């Protein structure tokens, strides 16, 4: 059970609207329990719910809406309760995504933006190398065959 960064954020900024959703995990998905306009109240209530027996897992999602850009940013600021296997799997998945984002180089990011980058796992790499070598070999064979073909055509036409 942990509450991240308890320092209160500014609540009444005309350019930024913040809401706090308390969510609970049931039947394999997160459902909204209630919504608050104050971080401290949402955290307090979520903590209380997490300590009770009714909910397996509780979290608080902070929704920040930037009016100027129309951007909506969701951040989980609290997780509490017992974490069943399903949620642990989800957490591991999220952690892996975070690691990938951190690993990602600007070149990869550009390729991904243009839809030209596909993520491969380390286990696929030997297969990819063999496939690349086969393709290169095929290109060489086709090139040589083309040259022979040209040569043959020249001899015929002579």
């Amino acid at each position, binding site marked *: 059970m942990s509450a991240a960064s308890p320092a209160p954020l500014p609540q009444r900024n005309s350019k930024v609207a913040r809401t706090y959703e308390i969510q609970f995990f049931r039947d394999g998905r997160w459902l909204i329990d209630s919504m608050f306009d104050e971080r401290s109240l949402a955290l307090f*209530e979520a903590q209380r719910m997490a300590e009770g027996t009714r909910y397996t897992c509780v979290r608080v999602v902070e929704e920040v809406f930037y009016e100027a850009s129309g951007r909506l940013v969701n951040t989980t600021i609290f997780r509490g309760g017992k974490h069943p296997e399903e949620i642990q799997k989800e957490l591991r998945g999220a952690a892996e995504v975070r690691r990938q984002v951190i690993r990602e180089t600007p070149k990869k990011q550009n390729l991904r933006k243009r839809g030209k980058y596909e993520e491969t796992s380390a286990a696929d790499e030997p297969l990819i190398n063999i496939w690349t070598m086969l393709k290169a070999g095929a290109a060489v064979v086709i090139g040589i065959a083309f040259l022979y073909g040209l040569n043959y055509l020249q001899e015929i036409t002579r």
Partner: protein
Amino acid sequence: MLDASQTTTERPAGLERRLVFRLLSHWRDLAGDSGFPSFADVDPFAIPDIWPFCFVLDTTEFPDDPIVRVAQPGVCGDGGNIINRHISALAPATLINHACSYVDEVLRKSVPISRGGDFIRGDGVRILYRSILLPMSDDGTTICGIWGGANCREVKAV
């Protein structure tokens, strides 16, 4: 206007003091796993310390402009008779008007929402308030009304 300290019922030690949390907990108890509680489940005598700060909105006929069906002295204060009035007809600088200001969001999201803020009352006194709106349903799925609770305090000018 009633203050929480004016209610005579003693609460067991360790129970949450704040009105919105107590009302939300009670709403959850009534709802169980069925989604939404019914108004038939609400027993004012079971919540004598909360009930004086409650109100009920009927959303069946006019979901865009619900009708006030119940308003206890703690929320309507000296705002006159507001029973059977649409919320658009409520006096602007009143607690119940501010407490009802986000009813559309509750109907849209179908979850309890708590909001707070401040306003200047007709006599020039600044009022801090906290409110909660809870969706209610007779069949467990379709929202037929809103159970609300709100309390406030005056902020003395320094």
